[in-house]
């Protein structure tokens, strides 16, 4: 169950792949929506960790356009609800994440990405 909260923290970890290795791009994805408990404090604390542009792009790629292009300075309930949905309720179940730099493909099946590297890719 890759959700965007985790996708937004994930860079490629193939040996030598250290530039332009974030974000991983989604390919051929199937998603599922699953409701989860809304916790505004958690979201507020989490916001500084986010790469905003990567989050907005990924959300759009998954068909969600509720987030503003710029991270807002004023955080209201409506915004936090949208953020909650994008970060925690959209589950990518099938497809792949692909590194823009080295093109390594991390397949996702059953909601679980396969992060295993081949021997020559290990740092």
């Amino acid at each position, binding site marked *: 169950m890759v*959700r965007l*909260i985790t996708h937004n923290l994930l860079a*490629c970890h193939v040996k030598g792949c250290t530039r332009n290795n974030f974000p991983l791009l989604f390919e051929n994805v199937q998603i599922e929506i699953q409701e989860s408990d809304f*916790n505004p404090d958690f979201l507020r604390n989490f916001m500084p*960790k986010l790469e905003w542009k990567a989050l907005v792009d990924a959300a759009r790629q998954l068909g969600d356009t509720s987030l503003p292009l710029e991270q807002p300075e004023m955080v209201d309930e409506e915004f936090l609800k949208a953020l909650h949905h994008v970060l925690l309720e959209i589950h990518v179940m099938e497809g792949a994440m692909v590194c823009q730099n080295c093109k390594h493909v991390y397949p996702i099946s059953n*909601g679980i*990405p*396969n*992060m295993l590297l081949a021997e020559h890719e290990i740092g």
Partner: protein
Amino acid sequence: MSRPELIAPPEIYYGDTEAQKYTANSRIQQIQADMTYRALELLNLPPDEPSFILDIGCGSGLSGEILDEQGHIWVGVDIAPSMLEVALEREVEGDLFLQDIGQGFGFRPGSFDGAISISVIQWLLNAETSHPTSSPPHRLTRFFTTLHSALKNPSRAVLQFYPSSDDQIQLITSIAQKAGFGGGIVVDYPNSKKAKKVFLCLFVGSGGAQHVPQGLDGEVPEGAGDSVKFEKRREREKRRKENGAKRKGVKDKDWILKKKELYRRRGKEHVPNDSLYTGRKRRPAF
């Protein structure tokens, strides 16, 4: 005690049968739950607010379900597809990844508020192959350096493990230190053969404290399964059932069966040829 890490690689040892057996064993459930509570205590997270936690070697989610119960949001990584499959079946809340921790993590700097690992890192002390990247020191270095960078400053990682010698403790702590961690080893009930537990308690920055926490000592609480703990366990089971019921609408039986089937198929793909492992002796490289 038994040393499964000397028998076969983890993804082979924890195959379908063992993953089910492991998870269904009530004694194991109890022990893993107790150690997870203790690890969370040592992690010293801010009270009453959910944190974002990495569960290293999450297995079938026995440790993760305690994180759920405590309201944390978590990510779990494990190398054994069959264990992850059981975790899916049990509907834990964390995001799960199929990952070999000895290959390191790709998480951006400062991603996690803390990390726990329950009964896992002794597996890193055994060489998988003769390739240089599979030597235990190389894998431990990769693991600790990428873990250090994935954690925010200040924060902690608490890793309970089963060392088989002081040399192993020495090797693991020295590599963790070189990776930038402070902290050290906490031993609970050092004088009890049965209750003794070793926790590697690592700090990023100050870890929010000056000193390594004290191990528990003195009287070992009446049997691992005293009534208080059983009560906790029962509550947890109950909550899990209720949650399960609540979520039924989303993840129905077909959904799970489909996932399981797909996952099993993929699990099989990861099982190397018999010849690779049959009859090969596996022992620590030092």
